[in-house]
C-alpha cells in the first residue's frame, strides 16, 4: 500500500512519458525505441544532428504521424494520441518546425485556426458564424500579456518577419496549451535579436504553468533556458542529462558520437 503510494507520487511528477517510440519508413528507422520523460514544470531540451529524428519524435508523440510502436502516458495514465487534435485535447500545444502559420490568413485567424470562436447565438451555433470581435480582442489581450508588439492582427501572416511569426506561433501555446508546450527549433532562421525575443517568450512559458519540450541546435539556449537535455543520434536516444551536470562540449560530443555514453 505504502509502496504503491510512493510509486504514484513519483509517477505524478512525470507529466508526460513516451515509451518505446519507433517510427520506420520502409527500412529506414527514423526513430528507434526512444523513451522520453517530461517532468512537471521543467524545460526539456532535445538535441541532435540534422536527421537525428527530433522532428519525427515530436510528430510521433503528438499524433501528427502514426507511430510504428510506442505508448504515451499523460499524468501517469496511458492516453490515446492518434491525431494532433487528441494531443490538444489533453493540453499539449505544439509549434511544428516550418509548419506554424498559414501565410494566406490573418494573425487572428492563425491564432484561432481549428479552434475558432463562433457567435453565441443561433447564427454561430447553426451556421458556424465566427465572432471576430471576440477573437480579435483575445488576440490583443494575449499579445499584451506576452508583450508581443503586433498591432495589425487582421493582416495576412505572410507580411510579418520571422521573429514576429515565431512570436505568434509561441503565443498560441500560452493561449491553448493547458499543460505542455512542444517547440521544434523555435529560433531556427532567426537573427540574434529576434532569437533573444523568442527565447524570452519560451522562458515565460514556465510562468504560465507550462512544461516545455524544446528542440534546438543552440547549446547556449540549452545551458541558459533548460533543466534537462536528451540527445538523439541516428534515431536512437543516446543520453539524458541534467543541464547542470553537462557543458556544451560534452553535449557536442554526445551529438556527434565522439564520446560514447550510456543512457543516464
Amino acid at each position: 500500500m505504502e509502496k504503491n503510494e510512493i510509486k504514484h507520487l513519483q509517477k505524478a511528477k512525470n507529466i508526460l512519458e513516451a515509451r518505446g517510440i519507433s517510427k520506420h519508413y520502409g527500412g529506414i528507422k527514423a526513430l528507434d525505441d526512444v523513451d522520453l520523460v517530461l517532468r512537471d514544470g521543467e524545460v526539456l531540451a532535445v538535441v541532435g544532428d540534422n536527421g537525428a529524428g527530433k522532428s519525427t519524435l515530436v510528430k510521433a508523440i503528438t499524433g501528427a504521424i502514426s507511430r510504428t510502436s510506442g505508448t504515451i502516458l499523460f499524468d501517469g495514465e496511458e492516453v490515446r494520441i492518434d491525431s494532433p487534435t487528441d494531443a490538444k485535447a489533453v493540453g499539449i500545444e505544439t509549434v511544428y518546425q516550418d509548419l506554424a502559420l498559414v501565410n494566406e490568413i490573418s494573425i487572428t485567424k492563425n491564432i484561432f485556426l481549428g479552434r475558432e470562436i463562433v457567435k453565441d447565438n443561433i447564427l454561430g451555433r447553426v451556421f458556424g458564424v465566427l465572432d471576430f470581435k471576440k477573437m480579435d480582442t483575445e488576440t490583443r489581450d494575449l499579445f499584451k500579456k506576452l508583450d508581443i508588439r503586433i498591432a495589425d492582427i487582421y493582416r495576412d501572416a505572410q507580411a510579418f518577419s520571422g521573429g514576429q511569426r515565431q512570436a505568434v506561433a509561441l503565443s498560441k501555446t500560452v493561449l491553448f496549451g493547458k499543460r505542455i508546450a512542444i517547440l521544434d527549433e523555435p529560433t531556427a532562421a532567426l537573427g540574434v535579436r529576434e532569437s533573444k525575443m523568442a527565447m524570452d517568450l519560451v522562458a515565460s512559458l514556465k510562468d504560465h504553468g507550462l512544461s516545455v519540450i524544446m528542440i534546438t541546435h543552440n547549446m547556449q539556449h540549452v545551458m541558459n533556458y533548460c533543466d534537462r537535455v536528451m540527445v538523439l543520434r541516428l534515431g536512437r536516444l543516446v543520453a539524458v542529462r541534467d543541464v547542470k551536470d553537462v557543458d556544451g562540449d560534452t553535449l557536442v560530443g554526445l551529438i556527434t558520437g565522439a564520446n560514447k555514453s550510456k543512457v543516464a
Partner: protein
Amino acid sequence: MTNTPKNSSTPNSSPTMTSTPNSSSTNWDAMKHQFMQIWQVLAALVLIYMVFFILSPPFRNIDTLLSIFGQASILAILACGTTVVLISGGLDLSVGSIFAVVGVVVGIALAEYELPVYAAVLIGLAVGTLLGAFNGIVQVVTGVPAFIVTLGGLTAYKGFAEILASGRDLSRFPDSFKVLGSGYLMPMIIMFGAALIIGLFLTKTRLGNHTFAIGGNEEVARLSGVKIAKSRIYYYMIGGLMAATAAILEVSKLNFAMPARGQSYELFAIAAVVIGGTSLFGGRGGVGKTIIGMLIMQTINVGLAYMGVGTSVQRIAIGAIIILAVYWDVSRRRSR
C-alpha cells in the same frame, strides 16, 4: 487586371510595430484591403468596356450592357462554386457535366413526371450537390488527385446525362418554371444572391474560413486540427450545388434540356475565377472577383462580336487573357 501584391513587395517594412493597439481601425483596414484588391479588377472591367464603347457604335446601348450581364449571370453562378473549390486548393473539371445531368433530371421531372416546379428544382439541386459530394468523397477516400477524379467525372457524368436523356423529349415546361431563367433580371438577381451567400459563407463562417487555410497550407491546417477531408467534401458539394443552380436557370431560359449543354462550362468558370484574381494555387480569392472576371470575359466576347470579330478570335483573346492572369498570379507568388 489582377490585384497587385499588397504586402509582398515590402515584406519587412510593412507590419507596424506599435505598442498601442488601435482597435478602432480593425475592420476598416481589413475592408480597405479587400476593396483595394477588388477595385483593380473592377477598373480593368470598366476600362475594357470603355474601349469597346469608343470603338463600336452599336456597343453604346443599354441593351448591350444588359445582355452582357445576362450572358454572364448563369455562368457566374457556376463560377462562384468553382471559386470555393479553387480557394481550397482543389479543382473541379466535372461541373459542366454536373450541369448537364441536372438539366436533364429537372427536364425529366417537369416534362415526364409533371412534378411541381419547386419539387423539380429541389431534386435538381440535390442531384448536383450529391454529384459534387461524390467528387469529394472519391478524392478523400482514394487519394487520387482532384484533376484526375474530376476529369473522370467530366466524362462519366456526361455519359450519365446522355443515358438519362436518350429517347426523351425534354421541353415544354410550365410557365411558372420559365420565370426563373428568362429575361435579364431573374438570373442577375440570383447571381448576386448566390454571390452574396457564398461571399458571406467564405468570410464569416468557420467552414468558409477553413477554405483559405486549407488552400493556403493544408499541412498546417491539419496540424491545427482542421478536418481536411470533411471540409473538402463540403467544398465540392458547394461546387455541385452552384452547377445545379446554373443548370436549372438555363433549362428554364431555353425551355428545353439536353445533355450537350454545359460543355466546357468548367473551363469558362475556371477562366473567370482566375481572371478575377483568385489564386489558382489556393488560399486567396473571393466571389466578388469572380463575378467581375466573368463580366470581363463576356464584355470581351460581346465587344469583339459587335466589332465583327468571329468566335474563333474571341476564343484566342480569352485564352491569352487567362494565361496573362495566371502569369500575374505566378509572378506574385515568386516575389514573396
